[in-house]
């Protein structure tokens, strides 16, 4: 596992950009940190390229019809899209069956 942040992950641009406050990552809840860490760890282990996850993430954000600069307060937040993208990538790669806990 690499000991430094990967630029293609840390510096994502556009709608997928990581929420930051003066550079520091912002997480509201512990589960957001977990979903971030799981998605990045599996990528670093080579289970999927980062672009594959990023495209999934952007697709989830697009599907929510959310403009990141004018968000709908009733729509899911940024890391909910990470979670949805992770669940789909896990199912596609066969690493895990679709979650049944909803």
């Amino acid at each position, binding site marked *: *596992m*690499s*000991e*430094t*942040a990967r630029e293609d*992950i*840390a*510096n*994502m*641009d556009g709608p997928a*950009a990581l*929420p*930051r*406050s*003066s*550079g*520091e*990552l*912002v997480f*509201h*809840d*512990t*589960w957001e*940190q*977990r*979903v*971030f*860490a*799981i998605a*990045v*760890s*599996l990528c*670093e*282990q080579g*289970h999927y390229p980062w672009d594959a996850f990023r495209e999934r993430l952007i697709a989830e954000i697009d599907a929510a019809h959310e403009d*990141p*600069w*004018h*968000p709908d*307060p*009733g*729509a*899911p*937040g*940024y890391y*909910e899209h990470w*979670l949805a993208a*992770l*669940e789909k990538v*896990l199912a596609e790669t066969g*690493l*895990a069956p679709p*979650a*049944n*806990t*909803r």
Partner: protein
Amino acid sequence: MSEHHEHDHAGAHAHGHGAPRNPYLDKRRNGEETAVLEARVKAIEAMLVDKGLVSTAALDRMVEIYEHDLGPMNGARVVAKAWTDPAYKARLLEDATAAIRELGFGGLQGEHLVVVENTPTVHNVVVCTLCSCYPWPVLGLPPSWYKEAPYRSRVVIDPRGVLAEFGTTLGDEVEVRVWDSSAEMRYLVLPERPAGSEGLAEDALAALVTRDAMIGVTRLPAVA
């Protein structure tokens, strides 16, 4: 999906310097929604731990890396290119936001970047007097002293005194300019190219550039 709650945080955060924020930051969920999301994530984590694909410690470490390890080398590469490529330097001083994007450094979330050049007669230093606005796409995370009240208040009142505490003594012929960062404007200092670095290539030059020199609290020493 259950109903989402949104508390009005606009008042709490609207102090000018913090904005523009990524609006995702202001989203909040109620306890019930959070519990459902936690359960989904726990299910994934438990299964991956069972399969030996992740460990809880490794996941904690991963979060730490991304929260803290965002180095200043992007800015150093910008500076080294400006030293070696006069046309790039001209573009950088004209429109730094566009010029750093040329090098592939995005990540600015609505802020404009301005590069200010040190010369033998002008020394620039950057502060954020109200909070901790910082040109993070090129400098990484701010050092703790940058965020603390003594630096933020004193560098404006007594810049020469503060610079001296960083070991930077400037002659009377040098004008000191203090740049106060804001929501819209983030500043990066282009340090003077060190004496003795004439023969060095761009990569070697980038290795000479320090974070503190790009904030403007130090000057780069001559190359031995």
